[in-house]
C-alpha cells in the first residue's frame, strides 16, 4: 500500500520526466520495428508506415500509459485550472469583485472563529495545561444575579483539603505596587502573590532563572518578560538583582516566558511579577489575612471528573466560613450573599460565574451570524457567477455538443469556483490579520490572547472550499442543464427561472437582514460622533496631571471589600498628607484628591417651587453628579462665578439628604431664568429615595475632564455622595505651571516617600489622556462606518447582480419590445422598478427587526442618543433605498443600450 502511494507520488512529481521517457521508449520501439521490416526488404518509407500501423496511435497509447500510472486525472485538472485562469484573465473586473466579496465574507467568519477559538478553546496565554487542571471560582448573589467573588485564605484551605478531588491546588492574589531599582526609572507593576504549586499547575517554566517554588517564603520575584524588556532593557545580569517593592527589597530569581500573563488577566500592560504568597505580609502588612482576595486553580485527582469535583466543592461552599463583610463604610453592597463555587475548565477568560454558558451562547450566535454572512456572500457571488456562466452558455453548449460529458463541464466550472475561493481564502487571511490589528489598536488589549494559528488558517480554507462549492455548483448545474440546441439558439430565457426566484429571495433576505445592522451601526456612529463633539480637549490639559494611585486590598471587579474602616481612614489620612506634600512642590499650583468614581446619575428631579418649565421632558431633569472638592473647579478651569464651590463641610449635607450642588450657568438660566439660583432647590419626591439638591454655586462654562463630557446638566456634588460603587483607586489632580513632563519623576519620588505602598497606576497629563480617548472614539467611528459601508456595498452588489442577470436573460425580449417601438426610458424604468420593489420588500421586512435591534442597543449602550432615532431610521431607509435605486439603475440602463438589430439577427 505504502509502496503504491510512493509510486503514485513519484509519478505525479516526475510527471514530465516520465512523459519524456515514455516518448523516447516508444520512439525506440518504432525505430527497431522499422529496421526489422526494412531488413525484410521493404523500402524505408513503407517499413516506417507498416511499423506505425502495427504500433497503433501514439497519442492514444500515451494517454493509456497515463491512465495506467493514475496521473491522467491530474493532467485534466491542470488543464481545467489553466482554462480557469485564462477565463478569469478575460473578465478581470468580475473576477476581482468575486474575490473581494468572498474574501470579506470569509474574513468575517474567520475573525469570529478566531475570537471564539481564542476564548473558548485556549488556556490562558502562555500556559500549557492538560484537561485535569481546573479553575475553582467563587460567586455570590448580587443584584439578583451571580457575580464573581474571590476567596479568603481560609476558604482556599477548605477546598485544598478536598484530597479525594484535588491532587494539588494553587491560589493567588494581585496588587499593584511601585517598583524601584538603582539605575531604573520607577515603574508600576502588578505583583501577584502565588502559592507554591502555581507554576507547577500551569506548566510554566522560567526562560531564565527559576519560577516561584513551593518552599519559597523570602521576598523573591519572577519578572514578566515585558517588565524585563521595558524597565531593564533585557539586562542579561537580571537574575540576582534586588529591586524595592513598597520599600521592601526583593530579589529577582527568574524571567517568565514572553506570552505568560498569569492564570487570569491581571495587568493590561503586562508589567507583572510573581512572588511567594508568604512574602505578602511583608509588603502589605495592613491587609487582613482573611480578606477575600484569592483566586484558585487545581489539578484533579486521577479518576475523578470535573462534575464530581464541582459537586464536592459546592458542598464545601455551603458550610464555608465565607467572611461576613467587614465593618465597611460602603454599606451592605459588600456583604456576601449566598456564596457558591464552580469548578470550571481553565480558559483564558472565564473568571465570571457561568462564563462557559455565556461563551456557548456567544459561539452559537457567532456561528449563526457566520453562516448567514457566508450564505449572503455566496448568494452575491453566485449571482455574479451565473452572469458569467450565462455569457458562456454558447461555449459550454459547444463543448457539450462535441461530446464532453456533463460531469466534465460541471467539474470545469466548479474548479473555477474553487480556484477563486482559494484565492479568496488567502485574501481572507490578510483581511483577518488587518481586522485583528485594527481591533487591537482600538481596544488596546483583550483579556485573552487573540490566537490566529494554523487552526484558524485551516478554518478559512475549509470555509473557502465550502463557499466555492456553494456558489459554484448551483450555477454550474444550471448552466449545463439546458439542452444543447436551445442554448445554441440563444434561448436565454429558459436558463434558470427557478434560480431567479431563489436569488430574489436571497436579495430580499439580505436587505432585510443588513438593514438592522446598518441602522445599529449608524446609531453607533452618530453616538460616537456626538461623544467626540462633547469631548473637546480641555484648554489647560497640558498643565493638568492625573495621578492615579492604587488602593491597598482592592480587587478589580470585587470592590474594596477587604478594608475595614480603620484601614480606610488610615489610607485616607496618608493620601491627604501626600496631596499636601505635592502642593508644596515648586511648579504645582493646585492639588486635590478626588475619589476615582464614575459620575452619579441623579434622576427625575424637579423644582421645589413652581413646577418645571414646559420644555423639560416629564416635568423632571436628569442630572449627572460629579465629585468635587475645594479647589477642584479652579483646577480644571471652570471657576465658580456665583456663590461658592463644594466644601469639605458639605459631606454633612449628604448624610442629611439635602445635598449642596454647584450647577452650570446654562442650566441655572433654563430652570430659574433671571432669578438668583443660589438657594434654589431641586427635589426628588419618590417615597423610597427622597433627596433634595440645594444650589450653592454656579460654575462658568463647560470645560471637559477625563470621563466628564460637555453636559449642561452636569452638577458638582460632594465626593461621598456615591454610595454603591466602592473606589478601587484614588485620583489626585495636579495643576502645574512648569512643563508636565519635567515634573513626573519628582512626583513619583514624593509618592514613594509619603505613600510607599501605593502604586502609581497612571501619571499623565489630561491632554494625553483626552487625546487617547478621542483616538479611541475616532477608531470606533472609522470602524463602524467602514463596516456599514461594506454591508451596504454587499447589499448593492446582490441587487446589482440580480438585475444584471434579469437584463441578460431578457435581452431578446427587450430587443423585440424596442423593435416594435418601446422607448429606452420605459425599459430602464421597468427594471429599476423591479429593483426598487425588491429593496422595498427587504426594507419593510427589516424595519421591525431594525427597531428591535435599536431598542436592544439602547438598553446596553445609553450613549446612543434616542432623540435622533427616527432620523437615523429615516436616513438608513433613504440610504438603503438610494443605494438600491443606484444598484438597479446601472444594469437597467444597460438594457436600453441593446441594439435590437444585433440581437434579433442572432436569434
Amino acid at each position, binding site marked *: 500500500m505504502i*509502496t503504491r502511494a510512493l509510486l503514485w507520488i513519484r*509519478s505525479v512529481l516526475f510527471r514530465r520526466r516520465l512523459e519524456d521517457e*515514455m516518448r523516447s521508449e516508444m520512439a*525506440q520501439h518504432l525505430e527497431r520495428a522499422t529496421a526489422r521490416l526494412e531488413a525484410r526488404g521493404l523500402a524505408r518509407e513503407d517499413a516506417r508506415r507498416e511499423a506505425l500501423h502495427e504500433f497503433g496511435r501514439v497519442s492514444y*497509447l500515451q494517454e493509456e500509459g497515463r491512465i495506467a500510472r493514475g496521473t491522467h486525472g491530474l493532467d485534466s485538472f491542470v488543464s481545467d485550472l489553466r482554462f480557469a485562469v485564462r477565463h478569469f484573465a478575460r473578465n478581470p473586473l468580475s473576477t476581482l469583485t468575486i474575490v473581494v466579496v468572498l474574501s470579506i465574507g470569509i474574513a468575517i467568519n474567520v475573525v469570529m472563529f478566531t475570537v471564539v477559538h481564542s476564548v473558548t478553546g485556549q488556556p490562558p496565554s502562555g500556559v500549557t495545561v492538560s484537561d485535569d487542571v481546573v479553575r475553582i471560582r467563587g460567586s455570590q448573589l448580587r443584584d439578583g444575579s451571580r457575580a464573581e467573588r474571590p476567596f479568603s485564605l481560609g476558604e482556599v484551605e477548605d477546598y485544598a483539603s478536598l484530597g479525594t478531588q484535588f491532587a494539588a491546588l494553587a491560589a493567588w492574589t494581585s496588587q499593584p505596587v511601585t517598583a524601584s531599582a538603582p539605575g531604573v526609572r520607577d515603574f508600576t507593576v502588578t505583583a501577584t502573590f502565588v502559592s507554591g504549586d502555581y507554576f507547577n499547575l500551569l506548566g510554566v517554566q522560567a526562560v531564565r532563572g527559576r519560577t516561584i517554588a513551593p518552599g519559597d517564603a523570602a521576598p523573591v520575584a519572577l519578572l514578566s518578560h515585558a517588565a524585563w524588556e521595558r524597565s531593564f532593557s533585557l539586562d542579561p545580569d537580571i537574575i540576582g538583582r534586588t529591586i524595592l517593592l513598597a520599600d521592601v527589597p526583593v530579589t529577582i530569581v527568574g524571567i517568565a516566558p514572553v506570552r505568560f500573563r498569569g492564570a487570569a488577566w491581571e495587568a493590561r500592560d503586562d508589567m507583572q511579577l510573581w512572588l511567594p504568597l508568604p512574602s505578602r505580609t511583608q509588603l502589605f502588612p495592613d491587609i487582613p489575612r482573611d480578606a477575600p482576595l484569592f483566586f484558585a486553580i487545581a489539578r484533579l485527582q486521577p479518576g475523578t471528573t470535573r462534575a464530581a469535583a464541582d459537586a464536592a466543592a459546592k458542598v464545601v461552599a455551603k458550610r464555608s466560613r465565607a467572611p461576613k463583610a467587614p465593618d465597611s463604610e460602603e454599606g451592605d453592597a459588600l456583604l456576601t450573599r449566598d456564596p457558591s463555587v464552580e469548578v470550571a475548565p481553565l480558559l483564558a477568560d472565564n473568571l465570571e460565574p457561568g462564563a462557559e454558558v455565556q461563551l456557548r451562547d456567544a459561539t452559537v450566535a457567532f456561528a449563526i451570524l457566520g453562516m448567514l454572512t457566508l450564505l449572503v456572500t455566496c448568494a452575491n457571488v453566485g449571482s455574479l457567477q451565473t452572469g458569467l456562466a450565462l455569457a458562456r452558455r454558447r461555449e459550454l453548449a459547444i463543448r457539450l455538443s462535441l461530446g464532453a460529458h456533463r460531469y466534465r463541464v460541471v467539474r470545469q466550472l466548479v474548479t473555477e469556483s474553487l480556484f477563486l475561493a482559494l484565492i479568496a481564502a488567502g485574501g481572507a487571511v490578510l483581511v483577518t490579520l488587518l481586522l485583528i490589528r485594527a481591533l487591537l489598536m482600538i481596544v488596546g488589549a483583550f483579556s485573552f490572547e487573540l490566537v490566529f494559528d494554523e487552526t484558524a488558517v485551516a478554518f478559512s480554507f475549509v470555509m473557502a472550499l465550502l463557499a466555492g462549492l456553494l456558489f459554484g455548483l448551483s450555477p454550474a448545474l444550471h448552466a449545463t442543464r439546458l439542452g444543447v440546441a436551445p442554448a445554441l439558439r440563444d434561448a436565454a430565457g429558459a436558463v434558470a427561472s427557478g434560480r431567479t426566484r431563489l436569488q430574489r429571495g436571497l436579495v430580499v433576505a439580505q436587505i432585510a437582514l443588513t438593514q438592522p445592522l446598518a441602522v445599529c451601526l449608524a446609531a453607533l456612529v452618530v453616538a460616537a460622533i456626538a461623544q467626540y463633539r462633547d469631548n473637546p480637549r480641555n484648554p489647560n490639559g497640558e498643565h493638568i496631571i492625573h495621578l492615579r494611585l492604587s488602593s491597598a486590598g482592592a480587587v478589580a471587579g470585587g470592590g474594596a471589600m477587604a478594608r475595614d474602616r480603620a484601614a480606610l481612614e488610615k489610607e485616607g489620612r496618608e493620601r491627604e498628607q501626600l496631596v499636601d506634600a505635592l502642593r508644596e512642590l515648586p511648579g504645582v499650583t493646585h492639588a486635590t484628591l478626588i475619589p476615582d468614581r464614575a459620575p452619579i446619575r441623579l434622576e427625575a428631579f424637579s423644582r421645589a417651587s413652581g413646577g418645571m418649565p414646559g420644555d423639560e421632558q416629564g416635568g423632571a431633569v436628569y442630572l449627572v453628579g460629579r465629585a468635587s472638592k475645594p479647589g477642584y473647579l479652579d483646577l480644571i478651569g471652570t471657576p465658580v462665578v456665583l456663590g461658592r464651590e463644594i466644601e469639605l463641610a458639605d459631606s454633612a449635607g449628604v448624610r442629611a439628604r439635602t445635598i449642596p450642588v454647584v450647577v452650570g450657568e446654562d442650566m441655572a438660566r433654563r430652570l430659574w431664568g433671571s432669578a438668583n439660583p443660589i438657594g434654589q432647590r431641586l427635589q426628588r419626591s419618590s417615597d423610597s429615595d427622597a433627596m433634595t439638591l440645594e444650589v450653592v454655586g454656579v460654575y462658568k462654562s463647560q470645560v471637559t475632564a477625563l470621563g466628564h463630557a460637555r453636559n449642561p446638566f452636569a452638577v458638582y456634588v460632594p465626593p461621598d455622595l456615591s454610595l454603591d460603587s466602592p473606589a478601587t483607586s484614588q485620583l489626585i489632580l495636579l495643576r502645574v505651571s512648569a512643563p508636565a513632563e519635567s515634573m513626573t519623576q519628582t512626583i513619583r519620588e514624593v509618592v514613594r516617600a509619603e505613600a510607599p505602598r501605593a502604586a502609581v497606576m497612571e501619571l499623565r497629563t489630561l491632554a494625553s489622556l483626552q487625546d487617547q480617548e478621542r483616538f479611541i472614539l475616532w477608531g470606533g467611528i472609522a470602524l463602524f462606518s467602514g463596516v456599514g459601508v461594506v454591508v451596504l456595498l454587499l447589499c448593492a452588489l446582490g441587487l446589482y447582480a440580480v438585475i444584471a442577470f434579469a437584463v441578460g436573460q431578457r435581452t431578446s425580449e427587450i430587443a423585440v419590445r424596442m423593435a416594435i417601438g418601446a422607448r429606452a426610458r420605459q425599459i430602464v424604468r421597468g427594471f429599476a422598478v423591479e429593483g426598487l420593489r425588491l429593496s422595498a420588500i427587504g426594507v419593510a421586512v427589516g424595519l421591525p427587526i431594525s427597531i428591535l435591534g435599536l431598542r436592544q442597543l439602547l438598553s446596553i449602550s445609553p450613549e446612543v442618543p434616542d432623540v435622533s432615532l427616527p432620523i437615523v431610521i429615516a436616513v438608513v431607509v433613504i440610504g438603503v433605498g438610494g443605494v438600491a435605486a443606484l444598484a438597479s439603475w446601472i444594469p437597467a440602463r444597460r438594457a436600453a443600450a441593446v441594439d435590437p438589430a444585433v440581437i434579433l439577427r442572432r436569434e
Partner: protein
Amino acid sequence: MTNPNFLTGTLELIVLQLLRAEPTNGYDLTLRIQALSRDVLNVNAGSLYPALYRLEQRGLLKASWAESENGRRTKVYALTAAGRKQLAEQRASYERFSNALATILDATP
C-alpha cells in the same frame, strides 16, 4: 494474426514470467512472446506498454535505463520481489484453472 480471447487476462502472467528470466525492454518482449508462442500470440504495443506501466505502478516491476548491445540506451524492465511473489500466485491460480478446464473438456465427449 489474431489473438485468442484469453490473452487479455493472461498478458500480465506472460510478462511476469518472461521477465523472471532476465530484464528486457518492451520491443524485445513483443518479439520474445511471438517467438515463444510460435507466432500464435502477437502482442501489439497498445496492450503491452499500458500493461508494463500498470505493473510498474503496482510495484511489481522496476524500470531502469541500460545500455543495449548496439550501444543505445533502452528502458529495461525487471521483476521486483513483489513481482516474483505475484508471479508465483498467478501461476498457481492459472494452473488450477487450466487443470479444471482440461478436466471438464476431457470428461465430456
